[in-house]
């Protein structure tokens, strides 16, 4: 018999954060956690100290972060950047106040967002280029290297070099593409689809298709492992983790981690280890090690408190989460 009590729960290492409103997204700005809230505020938490700023006149619909600033898109038609300190600054404003429900940042500080059927890309020097689409562009993500933007839309994903006159390349696949992810090595583009599936392309002269199906609902949260070899996804009653070694997941079965009687709503891979944070729509959070499928409880289920946001800090020592009822928290992993 093993007499040493192993920690099966990380609950006592979680510090609660009272966000008070649906948490749309959360990101670490160095030591400060920024939470984008559905009432337009950005809440900043620094080791227990809270302050909040009014970033949008309406609600926040989308949020991204690059470690220096939180960039949010709102239903007031504005794109706003909020740093760890000081007042938010407006980056763009749509004259028709159309929703900005997709924003993305690149590692070098380029930014992209949507309004209506138009995508706007702003390079790190501040030059904005816009491109119109026939249907609403939804998912936006920059390539890991270079100024190239992937845009999810009806019947495919466009790859656009905003600083050239060249027409975007279309990765076509029938259906509506919602969120887009680019693999860390740049070889794969993956989209989540209205049809409860993921679709992937292995880039090259002739892009190869990868179909990842079988989800009971839309997989709206995707996360790459730090080594780029695994892609975790939400949308089922377990986190579905697809293998991206070699040629990708075609013909291979995915891993299913943390099966429970609830739908996985968010997933986030640890930035340095094969450990996956899994959040469910019943409020539960599990930490799962991919190598041996061991599970640790971070947060027990709580009715009406479905997980809506995750953020690991850069070193992977702290995991922040937010929920639909305005609950939030920070887990600090115990030193081992």
């Amino acid at each position, binding site marked *: 018999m093993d007499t040493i009590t192993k920690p099966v729960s990380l609950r006592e290492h979680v510090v609660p954060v009272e966000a008070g409103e649906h948490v749309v997204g959360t990101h670490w700005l160095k030591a400060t956690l920024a939470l984008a809230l559905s009432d337009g505020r950005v809440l900043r938490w620094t080791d227990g100290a809270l302050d909040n700023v009014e970033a949008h006149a309406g609600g926040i*619909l989308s949020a991204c972060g690059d470690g220096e600033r939180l960039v949010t898109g709102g239903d007031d038609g504005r794109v706003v950047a909020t740093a760890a300190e000081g007042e938010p600054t407006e980056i763009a404003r749509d004259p028709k106040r159309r929703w900005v429900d997709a924003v993305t940042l690149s590692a070098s500080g380029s930014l992209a967002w949507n309004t209506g*059927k138009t995508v706007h890309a702003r390079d790190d020097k501040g030059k904005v280029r816009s491109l119109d689409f026939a249907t609403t562009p939804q998912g936006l993500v920059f390539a890991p290297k270079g100024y190239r933007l992937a845009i999810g839309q*009806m019947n495919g994903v466009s790859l656009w070099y905003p600083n050239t006159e060249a027409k975007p390349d279309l990765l076509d696949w029938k*259906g509506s593409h919602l969120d887009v992810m680019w693999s860390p090595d740049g070889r794969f583009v993956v989209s989540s689809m*209205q049809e409860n599936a993921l679709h992937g392309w292995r880039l090259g002269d002739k892009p190869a298709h990868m179909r990842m199906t079988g989800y009971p609902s839309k997989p709206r949260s995707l996360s790459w492992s730090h080594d780029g070899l695994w892609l975790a996804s939400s949308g089922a009653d377990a986190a579905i983790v697809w293998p991206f070694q070699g040629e990708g997941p075609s013909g291979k079965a995915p891993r299913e981690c943390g099966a429970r009687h609830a739908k996985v709503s968010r997933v986030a891979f640890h930035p340095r280890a094969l450990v996956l944070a899994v959040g469910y729509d019943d409020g539960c959070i599990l930490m799962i090690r991919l190598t041996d499928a061991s599970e640790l409880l971070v947060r027990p289920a709580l009715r009406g408190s479905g997980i809506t946001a995750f953020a690991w800090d850069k070193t992977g020592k702290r995991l922040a989460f937010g929920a639909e009822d305005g609950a939030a928290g920070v887990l600090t992993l115990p030193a081992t």
Partner: protein
Amino acid sequence: MSEKIPVTVLTGYLGAGKTTLLNRILTEDHGKKFAVIVNEFGEAGIDGDLIVGADEEIFEMNNGCICCTVRGDLIRILDGLMKRKGKFDAIIVETTGLADPAPVAQTFFVDQDVGDATKLDAVITVTDAKWLKDRLKDAPEAKNQIAFADVIVLNKVDLVTAEELASVEAAIRAINPYAKLHKTTRCDVAIDQLLDRNAFDLDRILDIEPDFLESGHHHHHSDEVRSMSFTIPGDVDPEKFMPWINDVSQAQGPQILRSKGILAFKDEPRRFVFQGVHMILDGDLQRDWKADEARSSRLVFIGRDLNENELRKGFEACAA
């Protein structure tokens, strides 16, 4: 599971009075807060707390169902609105005069996230007593909107004679005899006649359509969009009925605008209630048949170019 937010769809041909009705709903003293989704090029002058512009983007679903279309923009907007739950009590979706209501309705059945958070309450169609008969001749959209409605607001009745009104009412009833019909001037209908209808709630199909199980409407030859109903005065065999109704909805889904049914299954104490929009069917066993209630099985189709004899024979072959 928290309470689902009711969604009312407001449709109607251009100039019928949709905006008037919308403003009545929004400004009346009912203590409710609404989020309103209007089409981008809609008429100005809507008062309200939370107004969202939509662009009526239709998605074809890749699920092998040819008539299965959903409103992509609606899915996106509802997803955004759900982040602000608690800020409004109900949602109203206004469509353009030319819109087909089917993709809007299908969105609530096909998209699970939408279906989990919201429920379709009713399709309200505003029509113009003076011009409707012309529109029914020249605009297929107007016909679809009548066929689809749970509630019809027949507006501007002050502009027509009694005979004209009777004639336009007959034209509406030929297409859709089941909707609640309100004859109005400047859309003056009590708001509680429009909201909380639960028209798509299987539990409530009888409550809102008290005539539903009474014996048949005669079908009308006047138009290619029409309704038909079939009754079996007793039980049906589910082993025969389920494959048949699935075949019918697969083969004739594009022509069937709406379908409803209340059925007595052999050896089943509960009533089986179903409804459909094109190919999408939703059905469940509901309450027990009451002791004083005659067990009977009845189906209603509203559709375009449906073969009544074939459908009747097919249904009658399902008798237990």
